[in-house]
């Protein structure tokens, strides 16, 4: 008999173990949702994105900007809504770029942390979260930082997209490149959904401007070990310009390889790459004729100067465009909350955000124009071309409405 009860006890231990892990563990960050520090109440701002795995760096880049915005707002005393002071707290969860983990994190942030706003920086996670962010029980505003035009395309009422769709870039880039180098373009887009869509947008912009495409060579920038065979293949079609759709450093290696194989033409970079990171891998002279986003630190507006100085002071490095995105998104959200008179109702917050735009002062690095009925914010961004080993003059990229 003793033996039997022992077995029973051990089975109980097993259940106990599972239950404890759940109850004690899952609620870890179920922090003091409305805990007060002094007189100010705390509003949790959710964030889900990759913090481990291959895309971890991208996740950390965007999160740094968000943290900086929240720290700035808090140290200025927070926001005042209906006479009550509120400060913010970022609750960041890792989803390893996987949609199901984004969904789990979203549920957790919405119900455990009562976050009225949840940031996400990839399309897959966005689609998973859009399945339930408008549920009546725990609605939240989905703040997407992705230039993928798909994220705003599904008519979700509580989605705010805080980045210009990349579809604005191919046209001005095509014009610049064609003028300088010629009408033949070869594309090496990434095999990611984002890269594929970029490639298509680039192709149509290029042909609309009267150019021809010599070939498209999709490449998996994340799993390819040697880019040389792609470069050889692309160069064999004799292009004047090559479009690159990968992250910064791989793009840099492709450029270097192309120059070593004797290519003299220009390059167009997609917005996943930032020129300053590309320049870490390849020399500025090899980069002559490269068109892409103007590096944030090269712009001279007061808003940019202020942001760059503050970022350098906080993180000890020069920020790229990716660092700034969630920074200005968060600024808009905070202002929107004050305007709306609510820190809990996501629909009111989004309406409030629409009302506070445009923001043209130096509190944000870029001019923020408006938010359209799809929740897409229209921003004024700048591109540039490298020539003589230096960044050229910025030209503006205006998204079509």
């Amino acid at each position, binding site marked *: 008999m003793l033996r039997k009860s022992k077995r029973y006890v051990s089975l109980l231990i*097993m259940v106990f173990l599972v239950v404890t892990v*759940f109850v004690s*563990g*899952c609620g870890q960050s179920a922090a003091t949702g409305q805990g007060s520090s002094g007189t100010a109440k705390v509003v949790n701002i959710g964030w889900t994105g990759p913090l481990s795995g291959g895309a971890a760096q991208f996740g950390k880049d965007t999160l740094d900007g968000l943290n900086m915005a929240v720290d700035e707002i808090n140290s200025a005393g927070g926001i005042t809504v209906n006479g009550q002071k509120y400060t913010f707290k970022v609750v960041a969860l890792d989803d390893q770029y996987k949609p199901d983990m984004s969904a*789990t994190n979203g549920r957790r942030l919405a119900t455990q942390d009562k976050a009225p706003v949840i940031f996400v920086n990839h399309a897959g996670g966005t689609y998973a979260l859009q399945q339930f962010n408008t549920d009546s029980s725990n609605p939240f505003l989905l703040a997407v930082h992705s230039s993928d035009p798909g994220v705003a395309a599904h008519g979700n009422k509580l989605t705010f997209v805080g980045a210009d769709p990349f579809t604005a870039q191919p046209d001005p880039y095509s014009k610049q490149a064609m003028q300088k180098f010629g009408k033949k373009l070869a594309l090496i887009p990434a095999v990611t959904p984002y890269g594929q869509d970029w490639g298509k947008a680039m192709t149509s912009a290029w042909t609309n401007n009267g150019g021809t495409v010599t070939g498209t060579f999709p490449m998996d920038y994340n799993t390819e070990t040697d880019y040389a065979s792609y470069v050889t293949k692309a160069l064999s079609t004799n292009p004047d310009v090559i479009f690159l759709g990968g992250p910064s450093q791989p793009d840099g290696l492709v450029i270097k390889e192309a120059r070593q194989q004797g290519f003299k033409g220009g390059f167009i970079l997609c917005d996943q790459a930032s020129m300053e990171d590309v320049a870490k891998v390849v020399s500025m002279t090899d980069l002559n004729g490269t068109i892409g986003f103007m590096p944030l630190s090269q712009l001279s507006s007061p808003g940019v100067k202020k942001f760059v100085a503050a970022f350098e002071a906080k993180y000890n490095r020069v920020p790229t465009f990716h660092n700034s995105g969630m920074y200005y998104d968060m600024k808009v959200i905070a202002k929107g909350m004050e305007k709306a008179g609510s820190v809990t109702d996501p629909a009111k917050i989004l309406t409030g955000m629409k009302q506070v735009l445009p923001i043209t002062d130096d509190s944000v690095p870029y001019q923020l124009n408006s938010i359209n009925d799809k929740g897409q914010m229209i921003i004024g961004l700048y591109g540039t071309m490298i020539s003589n080993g230096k960044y050229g003059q910025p030209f503006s990229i205006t998204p079509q409405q």
Partner: protein
Amino acid sequence: MLSKNQKFKWSWLFYLAVLILAFIFPALNPGSYYIQVVSLAFIYAIAVYGLNLIEGYMGQLSLAQAGLFGFGAYAAALLTMKLQLSFWLAVPLASVLTAVVAFFIGLISFRTRGHYFVIFTLCIGVIINLVIQKWDAVTGGMNGLIGIPKPTPLGPISFDSLKAQYYLILVFLLLTVFVMYRLVNSLIGRTFVSIRNSEELAAALGINVMKNKILAFCVAAFFTGMAGSLYAAFIRFIGPDISSPTLTFEFLLYLLAGGQASIAGPIVGTLLMSGLTESLQFLRDYRLLLFGPLLILIVKFLPMGIVGLIHKLASRSPFRRSAAKSLNPSKTVKGEGL
């Protein structure tokens, strides 16, 4: 005889308690986050039961499991989205389709043995993953499929709410556990174990080793595909990532932590590891730093997982010990097993 009956009663009581706990869990109002985590763990557990059958009972480490999971998910998604089939038709159909695919894979892959089999199935998994990625026209390529319909209402019961979906998944899980329990305790199940313990001996006894391996692989694939199709209807967005080999490794971790070749193992392991993953969120990168050594420690010290450990602690009688021994692959002689 009496003591055997006694044991029967105790475990019955225990399993009944767990079952009741599972059924009243959403009624305790734990919040949608907990329901989401547990539902997802249940879905994965169904897939891990598949792996348990092929690796635990059959001793064939198949690394194509995530590929099959992804196949099931895409099959169900396409059946509901493109052919407008009902969820209740799409799930069994997708599961059967996965089993059919597994039949053909099995036909070729079981010609190889040991590590060749493991790597062969890994390659099959990679191929499925790559085909899903590249076959834009059907799978949506890297974009995946968005807006997969929710489970079709069953008469008056709709599955719009998270709680309803939880119960739906729970029913599928119980079905899986029941079938697995009956299967491994049947003659077929004992045949599987005998093949695991010694292929030569089994063959000498007149067992058709090839046929049984393929059978086990197909049944495993059926449940893995079913898990995939439930995942598609639950998350309602799928991308090629769900068929990547990393997911297979996760299944393996769940199975080993829980205990292979046991009926409780997959569910205990999956719940425990999902809970651990969630509760260690704050550790971020350190979390993965812990999982690797944990895996090594488990295979070294707990080859039969937590369930195995508990059985070992609990069993004192000579009868039990011998039973535990026969199920313990670490006791098999080198060169056999896989």
